[in-house]
């Protein structure tokens, strides 16, 4: 069955409703997106190059509803919702499905030069700023998102402003029926500015299917820095197809960490492009997979400018029947001299049925480069385990400590200490939760 057709038909049938409920700037690119999708013919399936475990076709196939008429959902969320990361920041807002809801007092908590608002409003205030120059419009997820997007979050840090408090966006899903949310998050960090953004994905209901079709579109201008944290703690019935695209200008710095703790099926694409020299990129990924989860991270970095460095570190610990995939394409184009590209993918298979696919790839067309990648898949170090046990540490505890230790260097990338500690705590809790609640992945049984 071709899942794409239903979306194209849906769009064609309801285009006027979609566009009537969205600002002009978001409507502008729908025709182009439709073209892309019609040319694709179908969505990628398992077995297509780069899609070893994920079938976007299957992911998009169920009959999800899309709230194109923008029927209002009750947003009592703010009063009842508790995030796992409560104390980190006051500067927060929510995306309920794809609807932007500001936290009370959000504006007051933001200093001058820092703006967090709905994408709808931004489309009216700054229509020229709502698309990044390097957004991969050919990507089918980006195109599908573009077809249906009506709202999202817009974050702008003006020139030279340093804002240390992380700006937190809670992605909440709330619906009684299966639903697709086309979310878009646009982040603009202007010249010399410095900000951090934390996105948490949480379900509101655990017994409904939903699909988050998400695009994060980032521009980091000259000498600016963005620290971006993406925490996924969803439900078994959630699906996520996300594209994180970043355009980095001269001497810009991007630190991105993705932490997957819970969910159903996830595909994250990272698309890093450069518009200037001397930029640095650090991508971190931490995955704790369990049950029948499927977690697929695919990185595409194209070095086209000089003196840039990229560093990727993705680590997976897979329990139960979970499946992990990592695809890492580093393309150093001719002329991208003095590029320093590093990539590391380390995986722990912690159950007999877990499975890991790794495809680290290097395409190098320039000789003045340093490029390396490494991928390992294995188990905990038996010698370390015995050493710890011989000092009296019980085996289960020793395994836990070793898995935590295995993950630790990804979290070291998190710049903000309180956030780092919270995340450590969450990872630890996730591992212990896994230990105490589900029989099938009890750590004592692991070999």
């Amino acid at each position: 069955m071709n899942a794409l057709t239903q979306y194209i038909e849906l769009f064609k049938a309801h285009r006027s409703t979609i566009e009537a409920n969205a600002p002009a700037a978001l409507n502008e690119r729908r025709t182009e997106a439709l073209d892309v999708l019609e040319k694709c013919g179908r969505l990628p399936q398992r077995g297509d190059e780069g899609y070893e475990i994920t079938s976007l076709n299957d992911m998009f196939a169920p009959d999800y509803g899309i709230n194109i008429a923008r029927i209002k959902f009750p947003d009592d969320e703010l009063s009842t919702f508790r995030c796992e990361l409560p104390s980190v920041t006051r500067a927060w807002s929510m995306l309920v499905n794809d609807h932007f809801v500001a936290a009370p007092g959000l504006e007051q908590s933001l200093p001058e030069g820092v703006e967090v608002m709905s994408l709808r409003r931004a489309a009216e205030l700054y229509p020229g700023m709502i698309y990044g120059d390097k957004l991969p419009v050919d990507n089918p997820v980006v195109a599908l998102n573009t077809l249906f997007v009506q709202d999202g979050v817009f974050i702008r840090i003006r020139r030279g402003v340093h804002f240390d408090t992380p700006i937190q966006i809670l992605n909440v899903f709330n619906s009684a029926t299966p639903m697709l949310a086309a979310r878009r998050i646009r982040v603009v960090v202007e010249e010399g500015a410095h900000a951090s953004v934390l996105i948490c994905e949480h379900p509101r209901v655990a017994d409904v299917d939903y699909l988050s079709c998400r695009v994060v579109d980032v521009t980091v201008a000259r000498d600016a820095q963005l620290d971006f944290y993406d925490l996924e703690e969803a439900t078994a019935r959630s699906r996520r197809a996300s594209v994180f695209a970043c355009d980095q200008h001269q001497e810009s710095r991007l630190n991105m960490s993705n932490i997957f703790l819970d969910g159903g099926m996830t595909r994250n694409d990272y698309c890093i492009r450069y518009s200037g020299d001397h930029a640095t990129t650090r991508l971190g990924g931490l995955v704790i997979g369990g049950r029948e989860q499927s977690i697929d991270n695919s990185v595409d970095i194209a070095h086209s400018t000089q003196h840039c460095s990229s560093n990727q570190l993705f680590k997976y610990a897979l329990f139960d029947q979970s499946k992990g995939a990592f695809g890492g394409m580093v393309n150093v184009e001719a002329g991208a001299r003095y590029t320093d590209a590093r990539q590391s993918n380390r995986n722990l298979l912690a159950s007999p049925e877990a499975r890991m696919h790794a495809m680290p790839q290097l395409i190098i067309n320039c000789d003045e480069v340093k490029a390396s990648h490494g991928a390992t898949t294995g188990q905990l170090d038996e010698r370390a385990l015995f050493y710890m046990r011989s000092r009296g540490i019980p085996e289960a505890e020793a395994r836990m400590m070793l898995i935590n230790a295995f993950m630790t260097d990804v979290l070291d990338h998190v710049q903000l200490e309180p956030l780092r500690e919270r995340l450590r705590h969450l990872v630890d809790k996730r591992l212990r939760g896994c230990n105490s609640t589900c029989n099938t992945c009890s750590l004592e049984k692991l070999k």
Partner: protein
Amino acid sequence: MNQDNTRPENQSEDIIKGATSGEYKYGFVSDIDTDIIPVGLSEDVVRLISAKKGEPEWLLDFRLKAYRHWLTLEMPRWAHLDIPEIDFQAISYYAEPRKKEGPKSLDEVDPQLLDTFNRLGISLEEQKQLSGMAVDAVLDSVSVHTTNKEKLAKMGIIFCSISEAVKDYPDLVRKYLGSVVSYRDNFFAALNSAVFSDGSFVYIPKGVRCPMELSTYFRINAAGTGQFERTLIVADDDAYVSYLEGCTAPQRDENQLHAAIVEIVVEDRAEVKYSTVQNWYAGDAEGRGGIFNFVTKRGLCRGDYSKLSWTQVETGSAITWKYPSCVLKGEGSVGEFYSVAVTNNRQQADTGTKMIHIGRNTRSTIVSKGISAGHSENAYRGLVKVVPAASGARNYTQCDSLLLSDTCGAHTFPYIDVQNDTAIVEHEATTSKISEDQIFYCNQRGIPTEEAVGLIVNGYAKEVMNKLPMEFAVEAQKLLQITLENSVG
């Protein structure tokens, strides 16, 4: 940086360029009277080849099945290669040095042909005398001479052309042919299965260690032909053999197709070492001519504790597409792949291996060294797969790329699929430019840059070169130097 400072750097780059523009020394054509069938491929051509070789019915059937399957396939496009359209109807599928009868001794072999192999540095005469090696020489489509056959026969070792094997040992050939590489495997495997002309057959009986290196030299001589040889090696329980393969072709400005199949079966506790020095004509500096080398090589470690080791030094061919692979089925079986691939000028190589871990406690090692110069493209593509049953599987992969120019490409595409939690799979890859510090250090000690490049590259490739049998190692080392240097003899 001011002008004066940049000059030495440019100078050294020029020297590297000069040093990396070596020419092909095996590019001569031998004037041998050759029987070539008309170009084109059809069922009739398949029947004609089979008839010319006087083959039994079952083999003709095999060919026809393969041909019919081939018709349903399209040429693969997925490799990181830019392959020009190949007109499969413009190739002659069979060329045979014309002779009255099969040569009974070297005296009867066409003197021109002997000369060809002598110029290749393979003296059949000498080889016959020296017991260090047994050589099977394949010119165009036909095995022209196999040395040391009698001596080997005393030990029960069969080493002959596959055509002879079909006549003399039909049961063995029938049992193993296509058992590792099915004609359904891929486009070129189907093509080869339909039209294969000759190649070597090796059978080492139970418990026998082959006392000498077995070697085949492949040579494409005739114009407008393709070469489709087929090699089948069977090592029975506790047997051991080391097999060497060398390839050259004349310098022509047309592309020629080489689509071979190598099948290896390794039984309980047996060991096969397969070494290749591939030096097909690579085309000229502008990329005119050269061999398209599309080869399917695979070994099945069927027996417990069996071992298969591939070593390849790839310096030739306009386009190389090959992945010598190991299917590790037997418990505790071991697969190894050691590769040096050098590309220069407009050459393209997409090579690597597949290690399929099926049996328990299977182990594999992959060491790949890519060296790219000129405008060439050099890719490593590999698959390490551990199926759920393969408990205790272990793989270590190291692939390094060395870049000698800023116009070449070095790419790494490993696929790692682990489905067993007791497996340990490690992959490390690095890409770097040849070190200017090292070149300077050599210069300072009086070693000219082109020699230094050769030294450094050989050092870089040493880990793999050490795996080659002595006789080949020296030759391969020279070849690396020649491919990259201006010291063509």
